[in-house]
């Protein structure tokens, strides 16, 4: 305790210092956003995904030809949703775990295809029996499904890989460039005979040198510890990962193009990465979000990357099936890099 201050003066000093901290806090818009805005935004996003349909409901797939008959056999009681789709799409949806099983018609009767070893399969059977029983009073026949839903690890690890690529590139390239600018090294390098393209290339190459190793380590961990499967081509998987890295590198360059303050650098990187981490279906399927959000979420680079990696590893998708997502990733990469380089400040 300072002996020169009376308790009253000391209290006043503490109060003024507290006030000074508060003023600094409230006068920084970035801090205000992260302290107040971001938790609300996060709660809203997760609430949209998990809290809206607060009732027991399972989804069963049905072929388009059987759709009308099955809708008659299993009237919508609010507990079962029937989604009609073509057979290949249905197989993919089952592997993704987007539905509990399938229902179809055999010899004039509905037959369920369910994995009755799972909680969701048993629940679907119970609800389907109840819906059908109300109509005919008989239990439904159950068969083994043609495709099993992958494990959560099969869902999670391709997403984690996409997330790692995003963080690796946006932080490793975007933040690295901002840091070079803030330390005036970018200006120093730009004043040498080395071309500006070469300077940027060196940052991208430095990141590219370690990124494959980081991601191989993550994937290897998933395979060894959680038995994550690879049903598709490893080459295609690598091409998707490289395309995703290119898209995120572009995003990093664009994010880094104008920043001149450390706080802004952190703010921009967080603003680029955190919303996508939440909505792009890394930890849970983005189809949980309301339908009106799907076109936006589906077009985000992290969603494209995670979905494309998942479709190759979990569903064995080929080049043609993945091509639209690859084109989307290239569009992000080329668009962001071009704009970023146009706006780029070297000082």
């Amino acid at each position: 305790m300072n002996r020169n201050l009376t308790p009253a003066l000391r209290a006043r000093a503490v109060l003024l210092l507290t006030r000074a901290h508060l003023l600094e806090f409230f006068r920084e818009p970035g801090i205000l956003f992260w302290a107040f805005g971001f938790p609300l935004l996060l709660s809203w996003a997760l609430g949209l995904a998990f809290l809206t349909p607060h009732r027991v409901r399972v989804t069963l797939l049905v072929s388009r030809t059987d759709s009308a008959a099955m809708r008659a056999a299993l009237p919508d009681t609010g507990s079962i949703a029937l989604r009609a789709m073509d057979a290949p799409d249905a197989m993919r949806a089952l592997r993704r775990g987007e539905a509990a099983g399938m229902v179809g018609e055999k010899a004039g009767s509905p037959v369920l295809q369910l994995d009755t070893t799972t909680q969701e399969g048993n629940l679907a059977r119970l609800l389907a029996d109840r819906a059908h029983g109300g109509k005919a009073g008989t239990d439904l026949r159950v068969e083994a499904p043609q495709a099993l839903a992958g494990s959560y690890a099969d869902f999670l690890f391709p997403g984690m890989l996409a997330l790692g690529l995003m963080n690796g590139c946006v932080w490793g390239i975007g933040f690295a460039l901002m840091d070079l600018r803030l330390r005036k090294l970018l200006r120093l390098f730009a004043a040498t005979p080395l071309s500006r393209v070469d300077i940027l290339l060196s940052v991208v190459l430095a990141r590219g040198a370690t990124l494959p190793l980081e991601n191989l380590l993550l994937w290897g961990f998933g395979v060894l510890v959680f038995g994550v499967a690879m049903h598709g081509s490893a080459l295609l998987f690598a091409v998707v990962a490289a395309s995703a890295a290119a898209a995120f590198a572009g995003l990093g360059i664009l994010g880094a193009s104008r920043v001149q303050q450390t706080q802004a650098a952190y703010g921009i990187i967080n603003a680029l990465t955190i919303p996508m981490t939440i909505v792009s279906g890394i930890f849970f399927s983005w189809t949980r979000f309301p339908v009106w959000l799907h076109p936006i979420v589906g077009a985000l680079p992290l969603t494209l990357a995670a979905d494309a990696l998942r479709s190759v590893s979990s569903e064995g998708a080929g080049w043609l099936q993945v091509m639209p997502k690859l084109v989307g990733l290239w569009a992000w990469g080329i668009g962001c890099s071009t704009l970023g380089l146009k706006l780029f400040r070297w000082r």
Partner: protein
Amino acid sequence: MNPPALEARAVVKRYGALTAVDGVDLSIAAGESVALLGPNGAGKTTLVEMLEGLVSPDGGRILVDGLDWATRASDIRGRLGTCLQDAKLPERLRVQETLELFCSFHGRGRDRADELLSLVDLVSHRRHLCGKLSGGQRQRLALACAIAGEPRILILDEPTTGVDPAARRQIWEILSHLRSQGATLLLTTHFMDEAVILCDRVVLMESGRILDQGTVPELLERGGASSLDDLFLRLAGRRIQE
């Protein structure tokens, strides 16, 4: 007749409503040493950044050895060395590694890095991390990086700000050595003695314009000032508080 080493012709630079540099004409002959003086906000940094090719002028032309930055940027870069006041060299690189890196930008190798280490008296610190160097050592290293390609023209932005007097004298010795070898120097500084000791000519800037230029005695006579400090304070519109 050789073209000036550095030349600004009617150069203008605006940032929104602010005209940072307002029609500046400046010519620095090869081998000449010039100090650019002026209060904060005078437009020195903007002018220097345009001479370095980091900022494009909104009007006028910038020429280096007669070559225009607008059309011959790649030819110009090898001729210029730049030393920034507070650039933080890569902190986790060693002194030797940093010098080899900057030498590589000019197609030079380890021999040149060794020469530079001797020149700036950092041989005993060659394995030290840049982040562990003192302010003076760091500034000497920055100077060595700036001259890695043996540039004929050196632009120094407050090269001795933040270093102790002994380190300042060391940097002056290095710069005097470079002058004696025919280098052209343009430096901004707030130390009037630095301008007097190192420079043939002083250029005074304020509000984006060149107010006056000449040798120190010429400027003092025209300005009716007893010293360059006095002239600078008048320029800045300040009064010494007795």
